C-alpha cells in the first residue's frame, strides 16, 4: 500500500522543504480544480477509494472544513478525529495515535497540532501521506499556498512583489509559511508588529522589519494581516487590544494615506476592530473571501499531487481519477 510517487515527495510538512518549482506546480494544479466548486454537482472521482483521516488536535473550523470539502469533492472517504472526546484525551501519545491509524490502512492524514514539528514527527513515522494543516508556531503550508494563489490571481505575479505580514509573527505558523513561500517565489517580504511579537533574528531569514505600520503600508503592494489572539494580551505581549488597534490596526485612513492599490489578505478568523477595521475587511482592498474559496482548490491540488497525480494531467483526472 505504498503511496504512488508524487512530485512533492511523500508529505507536505512545510514550504521550507519545497523548491520554487514545486510551489508553482501546486498553484498551477489548483487552477483546474477551481471550477469543481462552481458546479451544480460538486464531485469528481479523483480520489475515489482513498481513505483520509483529518486529525485535528487543536480546534479549527475554517481549515478543517476546507480540507473536508476538498476531500469530499474529490470523492475520498474521510474520517474526522478531534482531540476532545478521542483517545488523545485519554493520554494516548502521538506515536500511538499514528500507529493505530496506520494499522487501519489509511492513505493520508491531515494533521493540525498545537506542537511545532508535530506534522513532520508524524510524517517520519508512518508510510501514509501527511499533510500539515498547521503545527504549533511552525508552518501552515496550505494557508500560505492559498495566500500565494490569491495574490497571483489579483496581481498576475509573485516575483518582485512587496508583501508585508502584519501582526503576531512570533506565534504565527501562517507567517513562517508565507515568508518561506514568498521568498522562494522571488517576492520581497516585510514584517511589521510589536517588537514583543517578532521572533529573534527574524531579519536573518531575509525579511525587512518595519517598526511602524504606516511605513509598512507605504512600502507594500500586499498586506497579509494576522489575527491577534486574545491570549497575547493576557500574556503581556501587548498592553490592550485598543492600543494594538491604534498602533497596528489596518484602517481605511491608513490605507488611503499610502499611495497605490494595496491588496489586503487575512487568514481568518478576523477580530474586527482589532487588527483590521471592518471597512477594510469589507472594502475594495480586501480579498479575504477569495482566499477562502481558493483554499478549497489549493487543498484539492495538494491531495491530488500527493496521491501521485501529475500536474499536467489534473484536467483528465477529474474524469477518471488517479491510480
Amino acid at each position: 500500500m505504498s503511496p504512488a510517487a508524487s512530485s512533492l515527495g511523500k508529505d507536505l510538512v512545510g514550504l521550507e522543504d519545497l523548491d520554487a518549482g514545486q510551489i508553482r506546480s501546486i498553484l498551477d494544479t489548483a487552477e483546474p480544480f477551481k471550477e469543481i466548486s462552481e458546479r451544480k454537482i460538486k464531485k469528481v472521482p479523483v480520489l475515489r477509494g482513498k481513505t483520509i483521516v483529518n486529525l485535528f488536535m487543536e480546534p479549527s473550523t475554517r481549515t478543517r472544513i476546507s480540507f473536508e470539502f476538498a476531500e469530499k469533492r474529490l470523492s475520498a472517504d474521510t474520517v474526522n478525529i478531534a482531540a476532545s472526546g478521542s483517545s488523545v484525551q485519554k493520554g494516548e501519545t502521538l506515536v500511538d495515535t499514528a500507529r493505530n491509524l496506520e494499522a487501519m490502512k489509511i492513505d493520508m492524514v491531515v494533521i493540525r497540532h498545537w506542537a511545532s514539528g508535530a506534522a513532520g514527527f508524524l510524517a517520519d513515522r508512518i508510510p501514509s501521506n501527511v499533510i500539515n494543516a498547521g503545527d504549533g508556531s511552525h508552518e501552515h503550508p496550505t494557508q500560505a499556498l492559498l495566500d500565494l494563489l490569491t495574490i497571483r490571481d489579483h496581481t498576475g505575479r509573485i516575483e518582485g512583489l512587496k508583501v508585508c505580514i502584519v501582526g503576531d509573527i512570533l506565534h504565527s505558523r501562517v507567517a513562517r509559511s508565507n515568508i518561506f513561500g514568498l521568498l522562494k517565489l522571488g517576492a520581497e517580504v516585510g514584517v511589521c508588529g510589536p517588537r514583543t511579537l517578532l521572533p529573534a533574528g527574524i531579519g536573518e531569514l531575509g525579511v525587512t522589519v518595519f517598526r511602524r505600520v504606516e511605513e509598512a503600508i507605504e512600502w507594500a503592494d500586499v498586506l497579509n494581516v494576522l489575527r491577534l489572539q486574545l491570549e497575547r494580551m493576557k500574556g503581556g505581549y501587548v498592553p490592550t487590544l485598543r492600543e494594538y488597534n491604534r498602533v497596528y490596526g489596518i484602517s481605511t485612513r491608513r490605507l488611503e494615506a499610502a499611495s497605490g492599490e494595496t491588496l489586503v489578505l487575512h487568514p481568518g478568523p478576523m477580530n474586527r476592530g482589532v487588527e483590521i477595521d471592518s471597512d477594510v475587511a469589507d472594502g475594495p482592498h480586501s480579498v479575504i473571501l477569495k482566499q477562502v474559496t481558493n483554499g478549497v482548490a489549493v487543498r484539492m491540488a495538494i491531495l491530488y499531487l500527493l496521491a501521485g497525480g501529475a500536474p499536467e494531467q489534473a484536467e483528465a483526472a477529474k474524469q477518471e481519477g488517479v491510480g
Partner: protein
Amino acid sequence: MARAMLIRGGRVIDPSHDVDDVLDVLVVEGKVARVGRGIEAPEGAEVVEAGGLVVAPGFIDVHVHLREPGGEHKETIASGARAAAAGGFTAVCAMPNTDPVIDSPATVGFVRSVGQEAEAARVYPVGALSVGQKGERLTEIGELVEAGAVGVTDDGNPVMNSGLMRLALEYAHAFDIPVADHCEDLGLSGGGVMNEGLVASRLGLKGKPNASEDVHTIRDLLLAELTDGRIHLQHVSTWAGVDAIRRAKSRGIRVTAEATPHHLLLTEEAVGNYRTDAKMNPPLRTARDRDAVREGFLDGTLDVLATDHAPHHYDEKEQAFDDAPFGIVGLETALGLVHTHFVVSGEMDLRTMIERMSTAPARAFNLAGGSLGEGVVADVTVFDPNEEWEVDPGSFLSRSRNTPFTGDRLVGRPWMTIVEGRIVWQRES
C-alpha cells in the same frame, strides 16, 4: 594479609603531584601506598598490567541525575553508578530533584546507602537547597551534611528568590560545602524549549535567551561576593557567563563552574529538525557561546567537567519537541568526547583534562580522591588513550539511550575503574 593491588607500567598522570611518567601504583587496603618505579608486587597482590594505558586519579562527575527515587524507568542509583564506572568515573554527585526530593536526612541516607550497595562508582548525594525544591525556605543543611550530602542545590528549579540564595550561601559557610545553582531566570526563559535565535525562529519554537542565564549567573556571583560563600555554577552555556565567571575569579570570588561535553561541542544547529536528543537545559547555543565555553574550559575559568547526565526513557523523548523532557545521558561518552575533541586535537594536554575531570571536581565538592598521593583513597581511572570506538547507545549500562552523539567515532576509552582499591568495572576484551 593486607589486601593489595599493583597497577604496573601505566602512564601515571597525577596533576595534584605534578606526576606524568611510566610508573607503578601500589594500593594497599584501599589506599595508595606508593607510586614509583619497579615496585615489587606483594605476595597475593592483584596485578593490573597497564602498559600503554593512562592511570589517573579517579574521574568525578559532580552533576548527574540518577532518577531514583521516583524515576526508576529512566535510571536507578545502581544502574547510574554502573554507567558511571563504565564511563571511567569513580564517583558521581547525584542531584536531589527526584520524587520525592532529597531534602531530608532520611532521603540523603537512602541515596547514600543504595549507592554503596551498587558497588560501582561512589554515589555522593547532593541535598536540596530548599524544602521540596520549592524555593521558599532552607532545608536542614547541617543535618543533610551529617547524613552525607556533599553540597546543596535546587538544580532543575532555579533559585529565583535572591534573598533565599543569599541565605543559603551564608548558612552553608558553617559546613564548608558548595551551593550549586542552575542559573536561569524563569521570567526570561519561561516556556522556552531551545536557544532563542534564528533556529528557534525558523522552527517556531519558544527560545530561552542567553540573558535568562546571564542575569542569574551574575546575580549568583554578586551574592557569593557579598557573603564570601562558595558558589558552584552548573553547566555554563553562554559567552557572557564565561566572561563574568572569569572576572569574578580574578576578583577572588569563590566560584567553581562546570563545562559539559555537549556545550563544549554542539550548537543549536544540532536541534536540526526537532531532534529531541538535542533538547537540554540550558540549551545548546550559538557557535560564539560554544567557543567561549571551550575557551573557559581551556583556561580553567570552567574548572570542572560535568556531564549533567539526564537519562530519559525513549518513550519520553519520542514526542513532539515541546513535550519531550530536557536532558541527555553523558556518563559513558564524556571521556571519549573530551579526549577526542580536546586532547587528540591538540588543544588540551592530558594532564589538564585529568585536572578538569578529577582533581578540580574533588576540590569543588571536598571529595576524597582527585589525587594519587600516598595515603589517599585508591580511586583510579585507567583508560586507553589510543582506542578508537563508535558510540553505540545499545551498549550503555545506563538504562537510557538519549544521546546526540550516537555513531560518533571517538579516540580514547575507559579500560578499568577502581574504587577504593577494588575493580568495579573493566572492559571485556
